[in-house]
């Protein structure tokens, strides 16, 4: 049999590097697709886990590059927390396909799909892309409701306890602590925003849909005419008219959204553009999930108070 020499060399090189698998780490290696999920994982995992987020806090979670370094991160993960509801559909599947990690394959205890325990809003009844890039399972930006954070935290704690039984007690204790913090914090946030019940806000994307009912706010309009569709002048004119008629003077903008469009609308309506982030780390003083929520509520309350 004739096999080219270069092929033999390649095969030898491959064999030479084989068998140097990653050594076992005492800490559970957790990967989260987005920083908000990563923050929850840190709250629940505490010192028993190391957590890596794939998306940057300033990055649109719909449009993350499927960088090869993410393949390596996923290959070595013991648990993966994804948002689900098609949030990561554009980039996670090819990464997972190449990560070859059975521990985080669909249905494995190491695979945590945050959306699975959540009652998703805006679930479409039919599928029609002329309505924009609507996620077929519902709106995936649910973590902005602290009650949903509790549901996810519980799911995370259960999975962690299952795959890492030696730290199960710690995970449960951390969960109890997390839930207590949510209770306390939520009471405070609700109190802060209580005077502004019924206030109308405008957002860029449909990403504050879960925040509004929790705090009695109303998302009047989005600058995007349809999810994922760039704002058109006609649509913005409509939004401006509606904002004026409804005295809506707050526009919420995340780091990856077009601030200039928001500024234009704000100029015409006397509104204020609020730089907020749903991702911990996306703005200054938003290092953790709680800091991010604190920042969001403080910013909102301050702006709404100023407009009284």
């Amino acid at each position, binding site marked *: *049999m*004739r*096999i*080219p020499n*270069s*092929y033999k060399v*390649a*095969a030898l090189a*491959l064999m030479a*590097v084989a068998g*140097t*698998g990653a050594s076992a780490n005492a800490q559970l290696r957790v990967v989260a697709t987005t920083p908000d999920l990563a923050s929850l994982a840190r709250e629940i995992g505490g010192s028993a886990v190391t957590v890596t987020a794939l998306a*940057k806090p300033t*990055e*649109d979670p719909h*449009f993350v*590059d*499927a960088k*090869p*370094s993410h393949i*390596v991160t996923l*290959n070595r993960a013991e648990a993966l927390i994804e948002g689900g509801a*098609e949030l990561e*559909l*554009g*980039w*996670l*599947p*090819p990464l997972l396909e*190449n*990560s*070859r990690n*059975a521990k985080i*394959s*669909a249905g494995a205890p190491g695979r945590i799909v945050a959306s699975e*325990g959540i009652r998703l809003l805006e679930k479409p009844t*039919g*599928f029609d*892309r002329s309505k924009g*890039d609507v996620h*077929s399972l519902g709106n995936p930006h649910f973590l902005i409701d602290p*009650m*949903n954070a*509790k*549901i996810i935290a*519980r*799911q995370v704690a259960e999975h962690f306890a299952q795959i890492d039984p030696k730290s199960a007690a710690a995970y449960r204790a951390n969960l109890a602590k997390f839930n207590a913090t949510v*209770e306390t914090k*939520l009471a405070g946030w*609700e*109190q802060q925003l*209580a005077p502004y*019940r019924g206030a109308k806000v405008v957002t860029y994307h449909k990403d504050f849909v879960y925040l509004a009912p*929790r705090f009695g706010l109303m998302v009047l309009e989005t600058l995007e005419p349809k999810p*994922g*569709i*760039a704002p058109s002048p006609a649509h913005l004119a409509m939004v401006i008219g509606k904002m004026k008629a409804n005295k809506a003077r707050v526009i919420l903008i995340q*780091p*990856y959204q*077009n601030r200039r469009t928001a500024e234009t609308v704000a100029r015409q309506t006397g509104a204020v553009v609020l730089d907020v982030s749903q991702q911990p780390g996306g703005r200054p003083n938003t290092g953790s999930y709680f800091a991010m929520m604190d920042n969001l509520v403080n910013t909102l309350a301050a702006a709404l108070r100023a407009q009284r």
Partner: protein
Amino acid sequence: MKGILLVGALLLAAPCFGLAQTPAERARRDSVARVDSIAKADSIALVQQLEKELGAAAGDTGTATAQPRATGGYMNIGFVALTDAGWSTEPDVASLQLGDHDPRVRGFTVPNAELALDGAVDPYFKGFANIVFKLDENGETGVELEEVYLLTTSLPYNLQLKAGQFFTEFGRQNPQHPHSWAFVDQPLALNRMFGPEGLRSQGLRLSWLLPTPFYTEALLSVANSRGGTTWSFRSDESGEIHGGVPIERKVEDLGEMLIVPRIATSFDVSETQTLLLGASAAFGPNNSGPSASTRVYGVDAYWKWKPAAAQAGFPFLSMQAEALFRSYEAAQRESADDPTVTLPQETLKDRGAYAQLLWGIKPRIVAGIRGDWARGDDAVSQTPLRADRFRLSPNFTWYPTEFSKFRVQYNYDDRTGIGSDHSLWFQFEFLLGAHAAHKF
């Protein structure tokens, strides 16, 4: 007195407190209780109950209530169609635009309408199929089973096996489908080494993700070396490379399979920059003679910059470049032009390279420029497909959404012995069904 006043004040204040605090407090407590009850409930039991209810409802009405879903069914179905339109100073456009999915005539071309199917077969395999429909220069419909393969999902030691027919993993662009190309046409270097349809064949591919701290993947493909999609190997059209009459050549041993090793590695140069480098080779027999063989070598690089706070992935800058070298052993053979002439044994050496720069200016708008170059060393047999050639292609693409695109591209062509040509091409693409995820 003081006490009476205090009690009075309290009595007065109480309703106010009640109005200001109690409903909000109650609402909060209610919502907390409601969500807590959901959180505490066993989610599996909830789902089962929900399914039972759905099933009962279906049974009652006697109609299926299964919800259609864009994804997540047993199979994802996607359909992508490209339409080209344009003009070239070369009347025989097919002699200029050599790729099978290039615009091939003055006027309109539908060079690629692709039905893509994929899904999990079972816990061990994923399955993929790409069925391509295309209209040729005469408006005739051609159908090809472009790709159909199984991919393992649970092999040990970070291994992964692909089996079936698939684009050979050589370089960066060869395994990509036309709708993910950044330009209207196939790079000249790939056309020269791998023919109009690129390199693909039936075989096996083993991949190993190395346990290095950065991404390194080693791949080895073993495939059949026969057919129009193995252009530099046992292809019926190999006469266009060596000018002779191809012989009928059977596979005698494993060395006469097409063997393609590849190694790829990637680094995040900074928070916002990623570099991907690869080296590939392809070895196999060719049918210029009974023991002639071909070797193709290639290196490829891809670099991308995207700022930390990009809007829908924009702006960005990316650079992609590949360089290929082919050494084609042409055996002593009968000339295709004149049966009385015997062409001598010779080694045909070809090189080709392209580099393309893309600038995502603002959301959904990309400007690109590509330089293409290919040359063949002198040989006794002179064939047009080995002649020196240069092409420069600036283009501009507008993506109304991720599911559609408009592209306009100008090609300046310079073919040695023929001269220069100018072409202007428009391209429209639409995508239906399953959202194609973007590989890096």
